[in-house]
């Protein structure tokens, strides 16, 4: 597994675009530049209105459709043909009405070359898992919608897939049954001993997506694309009355009704509920610009209108906004309404001499969750170094659709300035600073001296 070093996602879609051929040579684009990765042990969902390419996306994951552009990586290897590690549950069940429950469940087992005993025990196990015991000899037409979908799930589980893909699995099932089956799917996923590592679910039901998944890819249409990704780290079982759940639902609502993220922005930004503490997305500004801003603010008496500030720094408004945001992330300033003013920490920073400033700045950078995450990755990786591409790939999970090259450069700039990261531009490798690696105990000393 050479490729595993660069990408540890179970499954990754890279720059996938897809077009269908219509009659008379016309083409219709259904997917545009989709970047999605599925990590081990997570439940993700694809949420969006119908016709936004969600189903096409999972069919591409399954290898049922070859995308027109881009590639599918399975454990870092390019997928060709049907994805062997993935199994699927269909919206319309797609059971074979002429086979019994047992025969339907056994459908994918024949080619595995199992013995009669293994074969039967696999079927029995899958049927038990979905609570269909006693219905082995029944035909699908004798079963209710919910029961039929259980057969569909058992059939998918019987082949012991690593990734279980569910295509609007409960939309043809009555409301109460659906509620029940949602928690059953989570139970199946939580049973760590079983083969299923990750679950991918397509849905158009916001509630379902919020209750079931850890990451929600919100799709937009014409052509299908990912508008934003929301993270929901709340533990299972989730309570639908939880205020956080409600807030997340509201956020998604606003995204879908375009209140939060207007559709015209080519590059979707991240929308998250206030309680979510994700990784900070550092705008593309340099550390010196941040310090420059603090100086300007200090000259103005520590408090300034943001428009004035932009005027003063003679920079484009958007950019000075980005600088201000970075200063805010680093807790140097706060921005009540249109004002920019020093925090206590900020005031302390501008009063300090350059050596102290260095330490203070470094402390703030180290406190960033994104930097901590990078440091943790470095600690875990062999030789304490990671290639640029690998870092970007991993960051993709947190910031799909961001220009990650620029985020990476910003991170390197801040990390170097704070002397917590080192970067070899020749080899494109991110490392820990030399001293840091060899003489841990002298870190503070060197910091102070330089």
């Amino acid at each position, binding site marked *: 597994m050479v490729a595993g070093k660069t990408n540890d996602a179970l499954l990754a879609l890279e720059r996938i675009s897809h077009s269908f051929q219509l009659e008379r040579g016309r083409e219709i684009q259904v997917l545009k530049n989709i970047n999605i990765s599925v990590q081990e042990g997570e439940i993700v969902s694809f949420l969006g209105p119908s016709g936004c390419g969600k189903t096409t996306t999972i069919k591409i994951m399954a290898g049922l459709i070859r995308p027109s552009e881009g590639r599918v990586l399975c454990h870092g290897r390019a997928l060709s043909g*049907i994805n062997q590690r993935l199994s699927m549950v269909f919206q319309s069940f797609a059971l*074979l009405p002429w086979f019994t429950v047992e025969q339907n469940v056994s459908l994918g087992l024949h080619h595995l070359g199992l013995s009669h005993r293994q074969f039967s025990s696999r079927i029995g196990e899958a049927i038990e898992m979905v609570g269909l015991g006693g219905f082995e000899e029944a035909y699908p037409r004798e079963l209710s919608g919910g029961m039929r979908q259980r057969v569909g799930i058992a059939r998918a589980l019987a082949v012991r897939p690593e990734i279980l893909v569910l295509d609007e699995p409960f939309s043809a099932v009555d409301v109460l049954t659906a509620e029940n089956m949602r928690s059953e799917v989570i139970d199946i996923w939580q049973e760590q001993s079983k083969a299923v590592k990750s679950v991918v679910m397509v849905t158009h039901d916001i509630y379902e997506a919020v209750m079931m998944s850890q990451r929600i890819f919100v799709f937009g249409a014409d052509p299908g694309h990912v508008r934003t990704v929301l993270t929901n780290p709340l533990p299972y079982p989730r309570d639908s009355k939880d205020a956080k759940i409600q807030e997340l639902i509201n956020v998604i609502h606003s995204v879908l009704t375009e209140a939060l993220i207007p559709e015209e922005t080519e590059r979707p930004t991240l929308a998250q509920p206030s309680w979510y503490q994700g990784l900070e997305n550092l705008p593309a500004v340099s550390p010196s610009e941040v310090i420059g801003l603090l100086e300007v603010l200090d000259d103005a008496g520590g408090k300034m209108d943001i428009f004035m500030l932009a005027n003063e720094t003679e920079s484009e408004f958007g950019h000075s906004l980005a600088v201000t945001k970075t200063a805010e992330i680093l807790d140097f300033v706060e921005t009540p309404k249109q004002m920019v003013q020093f925090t206590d920490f900020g005031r302390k920073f501008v009063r300090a001499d350059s050596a102290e400033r260095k330490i203070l700045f470094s402390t703030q950078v180290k406190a960033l969750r994104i930097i901590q995450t990078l440091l943790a990755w470095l600690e875990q990786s062999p030789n304490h170094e990671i290639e640029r591409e690998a870092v970007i790939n991993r960051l993709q999970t947190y910031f799909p659709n961001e220009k990650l090259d620029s985020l990476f450069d910003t991170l390197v700039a801040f990390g170097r300035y704070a002397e917590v990261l080192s970067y070899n531009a020749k080899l494109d490798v991110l490392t820990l600073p030399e001293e840091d690696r060899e003489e841990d105990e002298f870190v503070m000393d060197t910091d102070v001296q330089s």
Partner: protein
Amino acid sequence: MSLIRTPVKIGRAFSFVDLFLLLGLAVVIYALVAVAQSWGGPYRPKTEIDLDFVSLLGYAFFSLVRVTAGYLFSLAFTLVYGYMAAKSRLAEPVLIPLLDILQSVPVLGFMPGLVLALVGIFPNSNLGLELAAILMIFTGQGWNMVFSFYSSLKTVPTELRDVSRLFHLNKMETLRKVELPFAANGLLWNSMLSMAGGWFFLMVIESFSLGNKDFRLPGIGSYMAVAYEQGDVAAILSGIGTMFILIALVDRCVWAPLVVWSERFKMDTSSRGIATRSMVLDWLKKSRFIAAFDERTSEWKFEFQKRLTKLSKKVWKPSLNRRVRSSFPFLLRLVLAGLGLAILVYGIRSMAILLAATPGLVWLGYLRDTFFTLLRVTAAVILGSIWTIPLGVMIGTSPRLTRKMQPVVQVVASFPAPMLFPILTSLLLVAGISIEFGAVVLMVFASQWYILFNVIAGATQIPRTMLDVAEVFQLRGIHYWRSIVIPAIFPSLLNGWITAAGGAWNACIVSEFVERGNQTVAATGIGAAITEAARAGNFPMLAGAILMMVTTVVLINRFFWGSLYRMAETKYRFDG
């Protein structure tokens, strides 16, 4: 997959059903031996037919074997041809139009070639003649099955295709587990039609003249021919009765259980069912024998299936497949295409030589004959529609009537009308109707059932809510028909018309030329021309007449029915 799945009650006594099964088995074995003896016996082109009743039973059995063999051949042909047409992008554009042409060639078109070739191959036994008869039966029944199977293969729902790919079913498994079951219902209904088609031309096939030679095979068709020749009323009636009983038996013992069994292959359960129980199937379920067999073999079946999967995995190794496909089969395909082209060129050349012998005046005559037959076919379809549409809608919209009438209609429709033609012709002549018009009546008998069948099928599929709407809004008479019934049944009705017209064209060879005793009555028409040319052994004229008819039928199918069909597909559809 087993036919019957019932939990076995251990220790159940041997039931009398088992006794029946054993007796039946013994009879079948004995009869097959008799058939083998007859087929392998010394060459006898013209069997002497005994008109006594006991011989009649034997003849009936011989005919049954012949028609069944023809059907089995059709089935095998269907699976191979239909599969190839649906799967090979290269073969499809050739095979489907070819099928269109083949199905419009009347049985007599194949007769001389088949008989002369096969009798030539087996000059010393009856085998050649019997095989020729079986193949002729096949040419009268095989095509609709192929069309049905082909269109089923083409319409397997995408999600089932996805399932079969996702769960790594290879081609063999996909065929066995997905495609064949999906096609089963269509195949079954078309099998019943084909079987009826086999009976239809039995008289022509079992007893015919080619040039100055008479051929006669032992069978109920020959029996009827001889009975009419000798004017033996008792024999004629017992022949008709036996035929009816035979068809009813086949229907009850073979088709009815199969129809019930095939319910499971239906994709939806919404349409009102036609048959839900079959007495024979219920009996079979009681058999201790079958149950025990079923139980005993379950593990073997698993092992067998496993071996099969392994084997087909080896045969269809994807990597191998791709490699092979890229290099070697290209050559193979080239050779095949070349071979096909060569055969085509040769065929056209010999046909041209044959046709060049036909003078221009004869062609003009054929043109007139074809026009007359076209008029008759049109009249027959219209006449047939007049009573079948109201009756079909009545039966189809009432579940009770559907259950009661469907089996009756099936048996009546399967009865080979040509066996009644001599009687009908006499009646018509007595009534002062000449064969020129009388032939239309005969054609109606040959084609009306297709319309009735299709209308019933269409009417059973009218959504219940539609009928309720009609009742709530008190739609009656013309309004009811115009706004509910006709739009709802139109696609099936069109299907019925196309099949009926095809049937009428094919039946023209027996309706425009009827033997009554020793005299023959012929109308002006291409069917009569074909029959006369075949009897005279005039092959250039036979070829010319058939070419004329086939061209006409194919053109009408393409342009007239084709455009109607497209209209039906876009305009009249219930989508949800």
